[in-house]
């Protein structure tokens, strides 16, 4: 299985190019054309990223995340989420790199096959960084009014936390 996953990316890249050659496309010219479009949208992302990273870094470095975690502990107990995994649940909608660090810490402290390790793994496998998606996706096209995106996405995140705790116990 481990070996198979390493195959995915190289094979996809090769298939795209072989298929293009087969259809007699000037593949490198075509690649450059697409990459150039990508470059322009990348430059436009910087302002949104500066704002997002500012908020996230401040939350992490100020100790605010541990305050929020403390406040949510009673809620976690009701919904069956192990308290040791709660910091991961709190940071996962906010910061991708932060949740990766937190995930590794849980794996190190409790082991990957413990209940904490399993819940954390399932959470990591079933959520994305919500705020990153919202800021970057909307920022890239200049949307200012996001409507009900954030509440709906956070509801999805919470469902994933509760379901992860539930599945880790019964599957």
């Amino acid at each position, binding site marked *: 299985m481990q070996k198979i*996953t390493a195959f995915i990316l190289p094979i996809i890249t090769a298939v795209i190019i072989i298929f293009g050659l087969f259809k007699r496309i000037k593949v490198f010219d*075509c690649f450059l054309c697409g990459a150039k479009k990508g470059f322009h949208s990348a430059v436009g992302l910087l302002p949104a990223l500066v704002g997002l990273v500012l908020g996230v870094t401040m939350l992490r470095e*100020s100790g605010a995340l541990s*305050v929020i975690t403390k406040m949510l502990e009673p809620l976690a107990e009701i919904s069956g989420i192990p308290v040791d995994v709660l910091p991961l649940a709190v940071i996962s909608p906010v910061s991708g790199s932060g949740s990766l660090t937190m995930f590794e810490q849980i794996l190190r402290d409790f082991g990957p096959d413990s209940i904490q390790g399993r819940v954390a793994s399932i959470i990591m496998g079933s959520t994305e960084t919500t705020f990153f998606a919202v800021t970057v*996706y909307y920022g890239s*096209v200049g949307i200012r009014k996001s409507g009900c*995106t954030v509440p709906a996405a956070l509801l999805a995140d919470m469902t994933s936390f509760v379901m992860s705790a539930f599945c880790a116990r019964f599957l």
Partner: protein
Amino acid sequence: MINYIWSFMVVFSVISAIFGGNMQVLSNAIISSASDAVNLCIRLGGTICLWGGLMEIAEESGLTDAVCRILSPLLKIVFPKMDMKGKTAKAISMNVTANMLGLGNAATPLGLEAMRRLQGENGKKEKASADMIKFVVMNSAAFHLIPTTVAALRRDYGSENPFDIMPASWISSAAALTVGLTAAIIMIKISEGISCRK
């Protein structure tokens, strides 16, 4: 919404730092965050160019049409009004494929391409359209068929079976996706109802 959340993040952090005595750390963090954002942008920019280029080839050759045809029954459920032969549906199906294969850093550039096309169809350029909201919610509760990164880390920390969390992670992300999308659709309906009455 974003305005309030962002302000909350900043103000709450400053208050926590005052009470926790972390002011110096926070002060340094503010400065370094700007350059961190530039690093992130450059890293992201590389993958955006890479996948932008590869996608252009896939699109010219008709490969994306094939992928879109396979996924269109699923996409039809979420985006009932969308033209399944159009460019937007193709971009969305490429993003969904990348997510399913666990290629997180390909999913973002492909998602941005889909957003650009959704914006092209959007009537009000400042306000997110219903399809955009559904698409972003879909990406925040991404469905990974193969959780590559998680399994690799589990193995590194000595798991006996790094992939045994897969079924649980499918159930949990499917549940998250269903709840998130249902909530989004209900809230969109409600807000449309309100704007009609005005």
